[in-house]
């Protein structure tokens, strides 16, 4: 932590200017639920923080005809309890309900979590599976980054230091789609040992038309299980196929052994979870 200045922009334009002026030295702080622990452990020592927590214009949830948009200052808690999200995007609400504890969800933001790019962040694999994009901006203008292109490496993203992420956009899902997410964790409030999100779309004969499977906590950044998706393509799912899918998913994981367990154990958990979330997603798609 030690010493830093905190700048309080009045509006976005103000914030862009501050970030540009202190490029390389300033960090954005939103809810601080990711950043503050990092500062306290002295893992980062920025000279300035630009506090965007009070830019309440960025606190919104809109479910329109193109899909869902969640503003940068929307808290986890707001997502978790949003009636529209519970109804139309249950996987997001369920994921949020298992993220940390109430205090963290009350003050931390979904977009902040994505920008933090923690290798154990829960939202990233879910949003990736749903094909989400991030709208970002600086005083040089706006751009849209597909999350597929956003997470580059361990806590490295495509975001530039002068940019602010403005909103998450989740595209409308095709008919007969379902999505599921599960994490294994030590305690209820803990980050995952391993987690997997799956989104599938079925054709009218219950064959998989499209699938997106992402893992978290088993690589420096969230990782996609393409072979597993390919195995599913065009198939009606049965137990044997689920086993192959689980195996193929674990096959691309590259976990390290750490305080969350050995690499071998994490691989095993990936298999268990993959089976569970793929069949759950399919059930949902069938019901949709």
């Amino acid at each position, binding site marked *: 932590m030690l010493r830093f200045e905190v700048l309080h922009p009045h509006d976005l334009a103000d914030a862009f200017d501050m970030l540009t002026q202190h490029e390389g030295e300033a960090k954005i702080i939103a809810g601080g639920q990711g950043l*503050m622990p990092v500062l*306290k452990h002295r893992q980062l020592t920025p000279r300035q923080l630009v506090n965007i927590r009070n830019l309440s214009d960025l606190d919104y949830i809109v479910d329109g005809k193109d899909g869902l948009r969640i503003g940068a200052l929307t808290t986890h*808690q707001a997502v978790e309890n949003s009636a529209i999200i519970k109804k139309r995007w249950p996987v997001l609400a369920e994921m949020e309900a298992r993220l940390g504890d*109430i205090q963290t969800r*009350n003050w931390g933001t979904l977009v902040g979590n994505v920008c933090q790019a923690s290798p154990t962040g829960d939202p990233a694999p879910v949003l990736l599976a749903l094909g989400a994009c991030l709208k970002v901006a600086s005083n040089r203008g706006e751009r849209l980054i597909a999350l597929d292109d956003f997470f580059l490496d361990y806590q490295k993203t495509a975001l530039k230091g002068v940019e602010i992420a403005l909103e998450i956009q989740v595209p409308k899902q095709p008919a007969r789609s379902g999505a599921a997410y599960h994490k294994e964790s030590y305690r209820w409030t803990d980050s995952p040992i391993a987690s997997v999100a799956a989104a599938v779309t079925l054709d009218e004969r219950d064959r998989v038309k499209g699938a997106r499977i992402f893992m978290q906590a088993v690589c420096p950044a969230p990782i996609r299980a393409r072979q597993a998706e390919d195995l599913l393509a065009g198939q009606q799912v049965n137990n044997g196929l689920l086993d192959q899918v689980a195996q193929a998913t674990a096959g691309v994981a590259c976990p390290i052994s750490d305080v969350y367990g050995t690499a071998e154990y994490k691989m095993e958990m990936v298999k268990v979870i993959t089976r569970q979330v793929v069949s759950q997603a399919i059930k949902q798609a069938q019901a949709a």
Partner: protein
Amino acid sequence: MKQLLQLKVNGEEYEVFAEPWKTLVEVLREELGITAAKESCNTGNCGACTVLLDGKAVKGCLVLASQARGHDVMTLEGLSNGDGLHPIQQAFIDHFAVQCGFCTSGMILSAKALLDENKDPTEDDVRKAIAGNLCRCTGYKKIVEAILVAAEAMKQEA
């Protein structure tokens, strides 16, 4: 390096000088002498520093003091204005939900945030509401029981 900061705590307006990197719990404790919120883990993992911001529980060690400007801060000291205890406080006494007391302030405030939103909580609701508050002494049983009793009492009162 200290800067002027306006805070509204337990209904009162304060002007304090504090370094910009100070967290809400630090400013409450060190500058305002409002000490019921405790600091224990300092990394957001224990809930001892829990305070309410606009009625919602947050961890005072992960909120910069300057971020609390414009919000209503409530600490345990502000729970029962003047005479008489809040039903949660009374239930904590009656049901032995207090041992060393270091988690108590955070527990009671997390419980208050819950009961203000949910008049009829189940045991599961209570558990989820205090999942961010560690207690090393009580094993939680008597805390959960006390909160459920308080919920009942608050319903009777209303």
